[in-house]
């Protein structure tokens, strides 16, 4: 790999870092430090989370249908959802989903 490419990796890493860090490091607006967030900001996180989940799950579901492995996908998803509703633990939901997927292959 060339030196120019490594310089590019450093720049890409720095730009990625800045997009992650800048909003976290920005000072709060003076005057209203503990004001409740506006409705849109309160909903922004759950909306992003739902969008990421769909962006991850939908291509996986399509690939499962295309490859004929819908059964492990469906059982894995059901197990993950059931574990989450039962114990409210995303780690447990992940392990349950992976195990159910593996056992149903």
């Amino acid at each position, binding site marked *: *790999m060339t030196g*120019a*490419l490594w310089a*590019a*990796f*450093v720049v*890409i*890493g720095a*730009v*990625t*870092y800045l*997009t*992650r*860090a*800048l*909003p*976290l*490091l*920005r000072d709060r607006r003076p005057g209203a430090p503990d004001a409740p967030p506006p*409705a*849109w*900001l*309160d*909903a*922004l*996180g*759950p*909306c*992003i*989370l*739902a*969008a*990421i*989940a*769909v*962006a*991850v*799950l*939908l291509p*996986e579901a399509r690939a499962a249908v295309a490859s004929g*492995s819908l059964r*492990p*996908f469906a059982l*894995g*998803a059901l*197990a*993950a959802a059931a574990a*989450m509703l039962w114990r*409210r*633990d*995303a*780690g447990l*939901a*992940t*392990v*349950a*989903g992976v*195990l159910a997927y*593996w056992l149903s*292959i």
Partner: protein
Amino acid sequence: MRHDLPPDSFRAGLRAAIPIAIGYLPAAFAFGAAATGIGFGVAEVGAMSAIVFSGANQAFLLAAIPAGMAIPLMILLTGAASLRHLLYGLVLRSRIAADRTRRAVFALGLTDEVFATALAATANGWRPGGRWLIAVALTAWAAWTGGSIIGAAAGDALRQMSESAAAAMGFALPALFIGLMLGSIRREVAVPVALAAAIAALAVLTGHDKLAIPGGALACLSARWFR
């Protein structure tokens, strides 16, 4: 209930990040193996993962480098793809209880999965502290970087050992997001969240995957009418 909330400890953060690590490893193995295929050495793969730490951007680079894409264009396109992170910081900044130094360290590892895990942890009013946040981010970073190195050194080791185990571990991130999404749904944001999911689904189904997250985020603007 307050006594059910996790402590602000490195250990609690490590535990919270285990599902992310399980999900990252198979993808990192595959990335490392693929990177050696275009001429990267083992140390170079590790360095690239450590510096860039973005699965989507690194996968893009694996295609862009052999295609001979101009470096400024690579930087521009990966930068555009990273803009979604601005939203993550915007959402988390008032929900976490870390000082600026620890926020700066945490930001090194603020991936989609780390964001989702941190946000889900705040659902019952808890404000994650610096130690917890840094442990989550560093665990994710270590899993991705370490997995890339193993993949580069040993090929796609997991897939070579067991095809079914590799397939099952590939389901870890979908399972994690099922859990995190179910854990974050609240009655007062149910309509915007459903709208966000619908917009993201439309983007994916029409082949505009990159618009799924920013498009879904826009659904939050409907919150003022559905509270």
